[in-house]
């Protein structure tokens, strides 16, 4: 009897392990095929000029997405400038002082907003920025992306800050360090690793959005260095190329998609490297 139950248990152990492994493969399959598809279809169109030159009309050889890279980078940078301080600040507030009616309202609002479709965020930015300014602009696009980042960033920050043990807060307060300094210099610093990941996810998501840019930043075929002008972005450029009937443009859509993937990937690696560098200042 003992032997039999042992055999059964061993069998079940193995079966469950194999099942879990299968699930992992199943989950990785779409990811792997996505990467493979983008890389294999994108690489043929990838030249150095593709990163630096302007788009060309149909049929004309060469051309690239230089202005779209610049546009995406500048709008994401603007979104970070506005969105990161507000999102992280709101998260810290919710974690440290959010246990009353106002805090609960903010938390509920953030939760609702993080579920709002991005196209709706685009409409909001259209109403808030594009209509009063009477023109599509990179400014409107960046703000739309910031609006998109803030709610989820606030909620993630709150969770991360709540994970910091009370004992550290108390250690700081007992040294006669004021509450706000404790929050910003001790608690946030302790949560920095997680916050960086959260910020990177938010940035990657913002860089990959098309819908909020469609009627805020619109698009631009030329270099643009002014925030009050329509601005090109990789995502809208990909969209335009992909829905076109031209083979040449389809190729460019794949290549532009690969560029977007590379940029987000590089940013990720760079930030992780920077964090490890700064952590290396303190050796364990």
């Amino acid at each position, binding site marked *: 009897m003992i032997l039999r139950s042992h055999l059964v248990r061993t069998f079940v152990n193995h079966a469950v392990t194999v099942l879990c492994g299968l699930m992992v493969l199943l989950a990785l399959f779409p990811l792997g095929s996505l990467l493979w598809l983008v890389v294999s279809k994108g690489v043929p169109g990838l030249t150095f000029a593709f990163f630096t030159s302007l788009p060309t009309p149909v049929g004309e050889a060469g051309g690239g997405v230089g202005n779209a890279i610049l546009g995406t980078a500048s709008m994401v940078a603007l979104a970070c400038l506005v969105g990161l301080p507000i999102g992280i600040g709101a998260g810290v507030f919710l974690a440290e002082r959010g246990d009353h009616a106002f805090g609960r309202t903010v938390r509920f609002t953030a939760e609702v907003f993080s579920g709002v479709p991005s196209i709706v965020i685009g409409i909001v930015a259209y109403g808030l920025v594009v209509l009063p300014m009477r023109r599509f602009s990179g400014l409107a696009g960046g703000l739309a992306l910031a609006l998109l980042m803030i709610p989820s960033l606030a909620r993630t920050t709150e969770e991360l800050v709540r994970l910091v043990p009370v004992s550290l807060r108390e250690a700081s307060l007992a040294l*006669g360090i004021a509450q706000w300094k404790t929050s910003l210099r001790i608690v946030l610093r302790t949560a920095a690793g997680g916050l960086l990941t959260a910020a990177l996810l938010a940035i990657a998501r913002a860089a990959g959005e098309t819908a909020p840019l469609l009627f805020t930043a619109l698009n631009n075929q030329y270099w643009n260095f002014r925030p009050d002008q329509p601005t090109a972005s990789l995502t809208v450029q990909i969209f335009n190329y992909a829905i076109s009937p031209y083979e040449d443009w389809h190729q460019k859509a794949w290549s532009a998609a690969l560029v977007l993937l590379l940029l987000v990937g590089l940013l990720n690696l760079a930030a992780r490297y920077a964090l490890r560098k700064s952590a290396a200042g303190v050796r*364990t």
Partner: protein
Amino acid sequence: MTAPPKVKVEKLQAYFGNRHVLRDVTIDVPPLSITSVIGPSGCGKSTFLRCLNRMHELVPGARSEGRVLLDGENLYERGVDPVHLRRRVGMVFQRPNPFPTMSIYDNVAAGLKLNGFRGDLDETVERCLIQAALWEEVKDRLRHSALSLSGGQQQRLCIARALAVEPEVLLMDEPASALDPVATAKIEELMHELKERYTIVIVTHNMQQAARVSDHTAFFYLGELVETGPTEKIFTNPDEQRTEDYVTGKFG
């Protein structure tokens, strides 16, 4: 000799919500000495300690009444800034809690740096680590993470950190309960040296420890101060039956 008490507590009450956890505590803490607070779990020892630097009120729903005088000045007076008060009354916690993202050096310097101190940090850090009897062990690796230290070393680091802001009173909440006997002995030795310059109040579960290190002992039971006096008297010839029962191990 009757030096005026460093800390004078008068009719102190403390609550967590509706729970009345400290009742009518009145006690004097003499300067430059060690006062230990003993009593069974849940008797209000830690709460009492946390009322002395106004850490108690940080817990949601917690409040207190009564007066706590530091050099004759009521800490609970309107207009007293608890942040400034806590620089005069430092605290060491039950579990070592160094700042995990900071180096050994930065841990000691944290209280000064974040309070806008402009002076010789190096000198202060060295002095505090020497006072905390840790300097010899860490002087060659000040830039290493505080987490690279052993538990006992971490606790001495926390003591050095507390000393850096130059408090007058040092509160210790079971500072050795998470440490092994060797590390505990080091902390106790250290306390003997520290009382030359600081007034120390220590909460402890360990009655031998209280008998070994302290000059005065206060026995708390069910939120009340049962008896206080010179340590020798409390342990050998207490006035109260409950004190005698506790120190001889009949209950608790």
